[in-house]
Structure formats: C-alpha cells, structure tokens
C-alpha cells in the first residue's frame, strides 16, 4: 500500500512537472513576413572615378516662396533644400546643397534643370562644398556654360510615407577657379524622407 502511494505521488510529480514545463516553455516562432525596410541612400560618382555614398540626407521645405510678379498671393514655386553630408573615399568632408523650386501642389515628380520649366520648376542652386572650414576648402557651383546637362529627377514620390527617389547629374565649377570642374555622375537618391512646413 505504501509502495503504491509512493508510485502514485511520484507519477503525480512527473505529470505536474510535465504540465509546468509545457506551460512555461510554450513557444511559437514568429512567421517570416515580407517587410519593406527603408534605407535612405545618396550616391554618385565623382569625376567617374570613385563611388561616393552617404546616408546623412535631409530634404525639407525652406522658408522661401516664389510668388507671381506683382501678385503676392499667387505662389509659383516653393523652395526645397536638399542636403547630403558625408566623406569622400579620399577622406574629404563633403556637403552637397541643392535648392529646388517646385510647384506648390505637392507633386514633386519631375525633371529639374537650372533652366526652369514653368509647369515643373527648376534647380535654383547646386553646390559642392569640400573640406569646409579648412585651409584646403573648395566650393563648386553650377557651371553655367553646360547647365543643360545638369538635372535632378524625382522619379517617384510616396505621399503616405513622405519619401522620394530619383537620380541626378551635375557639372560644377570651382567658385574661385572656373577651369577647375567636377562632374557628379550616376547620382542616385533613394527613400529620402521629406518634411513639409
């Protein structure tokens, strides 16, 4: 009888332990679901040599608004600022500033040139600043002689997530020495978050 009680208690302990283990270690893996992850990228080739990339990018609406001549209520363009900061493969600090004048309807898609198109807008300025605040600093701006080649295209816009993507090409000249030119080719920007005022 004592032996039976012992066996019963022992079995009960095993059963209780089994239940506890099952309860405590209940597990169910999370199913792998496709998700699109946003990764802001701004890249270009400098003089067709090195591929430069940065992820420190800002695109936001500036304070400037362009109004129709003699009509202070009719907005023609809103000015947006595109800033990309990073280091080149040579280790130089670089800041690229692009000012875009865009139609005020909120639709950014279009090709922007230094030569404005009335229904789209244009590139107000494009500057490439190297080693700013250093002795070796250089600044480049739009080369007015070949402005037709410079463009920035916003290919797609995601209005729900406030994202844009596109490409660009620019020929710039040194502000102090116009014969010193640089070419930013194969320029790509992707998943750039934009801020509206």
């Amino acid at each position, binding site marked *: 009888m004592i032996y039976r009680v012992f066996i019963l208690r022992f079995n009960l302990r095993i059963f209780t332990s089994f239940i506890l283990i099952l309860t405590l270690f209940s597990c169910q893996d999370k199913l792998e*679901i*496709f998700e*699109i992850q946003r990764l802001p990228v701004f890249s270009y080739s400098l003089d067709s040599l090195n591929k430069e990339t940065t992820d420190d990018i800002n695109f936001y609406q500036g304070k400037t608004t362009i109004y129709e001549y003699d009509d202070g209520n009719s907005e023609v363009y809103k000015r947006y600022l595109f800033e990309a900061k990073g280091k080149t493969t040579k280790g130089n600090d670089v800041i690229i500033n692009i000012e875009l004048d865009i139609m005020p309807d909120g639709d950014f898609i279009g090709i922007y040139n230094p030569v404005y198109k009335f229904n789209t807008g244009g590139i107000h300025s494009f500057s490439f600043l190297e080693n700013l605040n250093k002795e070796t600093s250089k600044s480049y701006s739009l080369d007015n002689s070949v402005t037709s080649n410079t463009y920035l295209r916003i290919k797609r816009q995601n209005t729900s997530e406030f994202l844009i993507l596109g490409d660009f090409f620019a020929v710039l000249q040194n502000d102090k020495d116009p014969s010193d030119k640089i070419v930013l080719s194969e320029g790509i920007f992707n998943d750039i978050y934009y801020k509206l005022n």
Partner: protein
Amino acid sequence: MKALFITFVLVLFVLTCSAQEKDTIVATDVIIQVDGEIVYGIIEEVNKEEVKYRNNLLPHEPLITLPRSLVYIISYSNNTTQIITPTFGKRKIRKTAFDENKLEDNDYEDDEENNLKYNLAHGSIKVGLGLTEDFSRIKGIEEFEKEEAFPLIHVDYQIKINRLFIAGASLGYGSNRYTYSSFSEYDQIDIYQEVNETLYSLGAFARYNIMSGFVRPYALLGLNFNYTVADNTGTIFFIDESKKVSTNTSIKGFKALLLARAGVDFHIGKKFGLYTDIGLGNSLVQLGVKFMLK
C-alpha cells in the same frame, strides 16, 4: 319548523365538511439526508440497515428504502426526532434511494455506478464546432486577410466523477488560410504571401454541473495544448528589374492555453443532446451534439 329543519341540515353539512377536511391532513415525517436533501413521507420502518418510508404525496404510496448511512435525522410528525447517522459536518455522497415501484432508471446522473471502470466505459462524447475562428496564435499576420478556414472541430470524451463533477479530454483540429497581397507603386514591388495554418489540440478539463435535468448548465476549467504548423509561401516581384524572388518557410510550435468555459447541455433523449458554450479556449463559442454511452 321548516326553518329549524333547514338550519339543522346546514349545520350538519358544515360539520361534515370540516370532518372531511380534517381527514385529508395526513401526518408527515421529515427525513433529512446526510447530503442535506429533505424528504417528506411516512416512516414505515427503521431497522439496523435501512429506513423505509412511503411518499405520501404519491397516489400509490410506494415503499422507498434508504440505507441508514444516507439518513442523518428523522423528524417525526409527533415532534420527536431521531438521529440515524451522525455526520459531524461531513457530507456524504448522495445515493438515490431504492424505489420499489421505479422500474426503469432513465437518468445518466442517477446511475448508481460510481466506479471508475464503469464510468470510463459509459461516458459521453461531444462533437462541436468553434463558431468564431479565434484559434490562430501566429504573430505578425495582422494585415493578412483570412480567406477560407476549416472551422475548429472538437471531440470531447467526458466521464462522470460524481453527481456534479465530470472530467474530460478533448481533441481538436482546425485550419486557417491567410493571404497578403500588396503592390507598391513607389517601390515598384509586388508582394504576395500565403500562410496555411493547421492546428491540433489536446486538452484536459474538469467540469462542474450546476444542475441536472433537461437543461444542464455547467462551467469547466482546464488546459489545452495546441500544436500549430504554419507554411508560408511568398513571392516578391521587382518590376523595375523584372526579377521574382520566391520564399517558402515553415514554423511549428506548441502553446498551452487556459480553458475556462460556461455552457449548457440540452438532454433531448437518453442518448442524445445538444450543447453550446462560450469562454476562453481555441474558439469563443462552441456548438455541438452530445452522445451518451449507456
């Protein structure tokens, strides 16, 4: 003279009626059983083993026999009492009195057999459907659409422990199908995913019957162990690059789940009934049939 005669007849009539009414008042003894049940009748015999009484409410007044062990006290109509089995506050299991005139025992709950072997073989089978498809425990598919599902089917086997308590085990099966389709014009990506989930469950529970009869409300408490297999197939089509990527993953896992439900059995026949219940478990509401093996 005539008036005197009529008065006499009336008085005689009233007296006769009173006498008849008095005859219908029958002295009744009260039997209090050890489980608290009170029975009214006329005690015929109290011997060393049994208490015999007649139920004076029935027309044929059959002789009913109760074991002494089930009778706590008898309160006789002459205002005397007799303690038959002292209980000292400890209730004993109710055992139905043997009724000589009762030819058929037609109630499952009144079955005198309380031994485990008998009850194991004479339990009841419940087959039910989960009406709300609430059994899925897969995470991360909140945005998926549920397209079609095999409703959760449960098969329970219940055995009587005593008059009010029932123990049971349950098996369950169900499946779900989820799909997700999305096209992003901005990303130029077309995504399609399909998840097929199959659930197997094994559970054990204890059930408490609140009352007996045609309608039997109950509450049950237990534990379910769910084993889930989910297959996930998906394709991503990168439109810009005309490239398609396919994936196929599978997960398996188990989860313990508390079972706490309240419901009602409707005993339509001796061997058949319907039931419905609601509460925690794999499905919110269950509806099904019940078969009694007896």
